[in-house]
């Protein structure tokens, strides 16, 4: 259970939401706004963990980090120019009970694109907007770079933990040794204390680092959201192409029927075998075709609009996303470097102090 504190008058100030409800909200948003790069949720299970950090989902540190991630998700959604106006979002933030029913009532699940259709579209689409293909390529790179970085960081963190903790042994041994020495005793003992402090410091350092890892993870997951928008473009474009194709073939059929020379077709064959069909039948068929063509033309118009609207709106949001991403990542990397520098400063402090103690030996 994650508590969500929101101040929206006159609604209650806080209410309880489960992780699964967040998932439901996000699914709704993704289906309803396929042209928006929807902010991702924090990970459900801990991944990219260095082994001393608990991979247990019930671990209080992990739960807290996930809570922060969920808060961040809501902040992003609530400040998005398009998403923030959504009614369902408003209900999520204000109505504790009955929210789920309201979501299901929208029937959004029916509108969801089948995975298979989407995949098929990716392979068979012909004319995609180059900008979208570039975006898709970029999202692949973003994903691969961030996951590389996260993996390497986790391994290095693991090792660094080991180095620091072993220094704790110095603390213990120096303390014991100082007991048997007369002149060296004091210096050794206080040096030992500094070694203990040094060994203990890694816990805080790595916990803080985890915070920056989380920021990177958000963009790892954002890559998938970006890809989803590109896939939607491929799908709408593909459907448009299919509709156009269908219209063309129907028009062609009408041509042939009208001029009486049906090229190779089933009707043509049966005519040859069983004799020409009656004029009434041909008329009926022609009429049907005209209806279908009219429907087809509507369909193409609709699809064209759908496709163009998607392209237009998606392009706007992708620009917004890129700006946000550049700013966020730059800030995260700087903050990370600054944190690392402060860690170096602590290291300098500890060893300078230790040196002072050794000088007193």
């Amino acid at each position, binding site marked *: 259970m994650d508590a969500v504190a929101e101040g929206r008058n006159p609604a209650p100030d806080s209410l309880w939401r489960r992780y699964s409800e967040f998932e439901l909200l996000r699914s709704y948003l993704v289906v309803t706004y396929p042209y928006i790069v929807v902010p991702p949720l924090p990970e459900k299970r801990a991944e990219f963990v260095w082994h001393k950090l608990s991979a247990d989902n019930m671990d209080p540190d992990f739960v807290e980090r996930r809570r922060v991630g969920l808060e961040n998700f809501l902040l992003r959604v609530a400040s998005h120019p398009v998403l923030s106006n959504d009614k369902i979002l408003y209900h999520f933030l204000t109505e504790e009970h009955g929210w789920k029913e309201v979501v299901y009532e929208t029937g959004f699940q029916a509108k969801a694109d089948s995975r298979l259709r989407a995949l098929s579209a990716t392979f068979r689409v012909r004319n995609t907007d180059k900008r979208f293909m570039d975006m898709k390529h970029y999202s692949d790179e973003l994903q691969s770079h961030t996951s590389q970085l996260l993996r390497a960081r986790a391994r290095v963190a693991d090792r660094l933990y080991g180095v620091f903790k072993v220094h704790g042994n110095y603390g213990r041994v120096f303390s014991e040794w100082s007991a048997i020495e007369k002149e060296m005793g004091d210096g050794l003992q206080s040096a030992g204390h500094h070694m203990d402090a040094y060994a203990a410091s890694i816990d805080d350092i790595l916990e803080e680092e985890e915070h920056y890892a989380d920021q990177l993870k958000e963009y790892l997951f954002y890559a998938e959201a970006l890809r989803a928008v590109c896939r939607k473009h491929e799908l709408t474009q593909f459907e448009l192409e299919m509709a156009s194709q269908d219209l063309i073939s129907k028009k062609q059929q009408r041509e042939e029927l009208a001029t009486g020379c049906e090229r190779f077709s089933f009707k043509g064959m049966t005519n040859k075998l069983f004799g020409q069909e009656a004029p009434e039948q041909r008329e009926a068929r022609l009429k049907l075709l005209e209806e279908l063509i009219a429907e087809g033309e509507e369909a193409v118009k609709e699809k064209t609009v759908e496709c163009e609207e998607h392209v237009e709106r998606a392009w706007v949001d992708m620009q917004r996303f890129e700006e946000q991403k550049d700013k966020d990542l730059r800030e995260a990397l700087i903050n990370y470097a600054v944190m690392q520098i402060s860690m170096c400063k602590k290291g300098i402090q500890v*060893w300078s102090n230790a*040196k002072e103690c050794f000088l007193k030996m």
Partner: protein
Amino acid sequence: MPNSPSSMVNQYRLEEDEEEEQQQDADTKDIFITVDNPESHVTAIETFIMYRVLTKTTRSEFDSSEYEVRRRYQDFLWLRSRLEENHPTLIVHPLPEKFVMKGMVERFNDDFIETRRKALHRFLNKISEHPILSYSQHFKVFLTAQELTSHKKQGPGFLSRMGETVRAVANSVRGLRNRPEEFTLMQEYVEDFSNKICSVDKVTQRIIKEQREYLDELKQYDLAEPLKGVARCVEGCSKETEEQIQHLSEVLVPALHEYVLCAETLKAVMRRRDNIQAEFEAKNEALASRKPENQELQEEVDGLADRVELANNALKGDWSRWQKGMRTDLKSAFISTAEKNVDYYEKVALYRLASACSTTQLWSTEAAEWIFQEEID
């Protein structure tokens, strides 16, 4: 006779103020020894390394002011065993071990040879700084004789040494009646010190191992184009970590290791002192149990009593000298390590700073301000 008149005079000197003496040593150092230039020698039977031992001195006992000889490890062993024989209760600095047990270290591996050379150099210098040992005849021969083999054959034979060992075993079985309090305390200290220094040595080895594994992971950071700034930072950190590991291996580890060996030397010295006392006590008891006064036995017992006193005084004097040396040596090794670590963090901080700048491709004013503010604090 193990004690020459001149060495007895020097024993007197040990009772003077320690500080003054060490100051005198520093100002009036009249002998300089270096060990270098290891060269491989191949014979029909074996292959071994010869080291060059260069001596420069103004001492009158030496005929010349400069000597150059070549010595092998076995020669050092000979010298040390002679010194221990002649001065059983003086603390003779240990030699590097015969071969390294842990890991697969080839005898002629460059690192191994260099480590050994440094330790041999330290050994000879420690001997030359010792107020008594440095005037030993064997030491002089070692530094000056072109051919050592003839000298090696002289001295107490194998059989007499055997006799000593047998007596020592017999005495230790018999047990000591009255070990003076101060030597009991010394014994306890030696036991404890030995444990502690071994622990510190182990911890240090462990740290090196963990650092190496950390370095391996750093080296595997394979970052593509957009993160080149980060990649360069990681490279820099790797280089610094490597240097840190090297410093530990070349400064702290050898110093600790030397004192691990010293601890063993101290234990042996304590044992020998006990044996000397035990021998005296045995003969003394034998004397007491003989009813008619035996003049010869009385003289023997008196001689042994003197021997005990000399041995105890030698040890007492050398003991505080050794403790001072230990404190100085280890203190300097620890300080050097702490300094290296500070240096490491300073350099790594710079690399991180550079990485932050390259990431932003310009100086981000807030970040820069923050960093500078921290520097000022």
